[in-house]
């Protein structure tokens, strides 16, 4: 597991695609249904792409591939992503 880092490694790329910091979002694993903070995911990469795995079962929950001028975000391994937003005034 030498190339393993945690989900904070996803922060920069996700912030470029979404307008909010997603490292505090909660992702539900499609395999074991465990809910984990994005920052707690196990991450391999960055090349050929970022692969984020569930810290509980190691199933892939997120893939992010960066190419010049475009990015692919594959979330099929996640049941859902809960994104914290500012509460309305």
């Amino acid at each position, binding site marked *: *597991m*030498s*190339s*393993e880092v945690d989900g904070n490694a996803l922060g920069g790329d996700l912030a470029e695609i979404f307008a909010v910091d997603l490292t505090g979002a909660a992702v539900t694993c499609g395999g074991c249904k465990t809910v984990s903070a994005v920052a707690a995911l196990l991450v*391999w*990469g960055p*090349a*050929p*792409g970022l*692969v984020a*795995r569930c810290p509980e079962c*190691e199933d*892939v929950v997120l*893939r*992010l*591939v960066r*190419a010049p001028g*475009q*990015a*692919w975000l*594959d979330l099929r391994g996640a049941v859902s992503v809960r994104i914290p937003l500012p509460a309305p005034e």
Partner: protein
Amino acid sequence: MSIISPGFGGRRRSSRPDLPPGQYLTHDFPVLSAGPTPRVPLDRWSFTVTDELGQKTSWNWEEFNALPQEEFTVDIHCVTKWSKLGTTWKGVALDTIFENLESSADYTMVHSYGGYTTNVPVEDLLDGKAWIVHTFDGEPLHPEHGGPARLLVPHLYFWKSAKWVNGLQMIPQDEPGFWEEAGYHMYGDPWREQRYQGD
């Protein structure tokens, strides 16, 4: 359209006609992984071809090593832009694996321990263009580089050369594998710079 250069000699190295567009030369062997390195004990290793009817043909480690072995030297090209020239491997040609198999499928899905997949057309595995290798540079293939055995398809980008390979599934229609689902090219010819979908 074979671009393999068996027995690569240093003579052509100065002008580098063997470096595909956009690639740079490395003498390291970078490790790229999409997950934890599976540790597969040899007495539990097997390689299985599943045809389009679901029939399986398997080789255990002993049977696989009893197949005719080839030693060869080829250039490898990673989509992350490094190329490594004149790498020497030993293993079993896919021609040997396919010898007694009957299948009319035109495509394969390559499967690995750990769950990795990649798609390769059958014709790119035949005629001495692809091997299941277990030895690199005279040494048993290190787990970080795909040992006990990996696929080697040197004329395509290196993500097609699946590490920790454990099987091939014959499929009638082309389907995307692990990286092809997430933006990478379905075929991956380094000489045409087929890195991403649409290249």
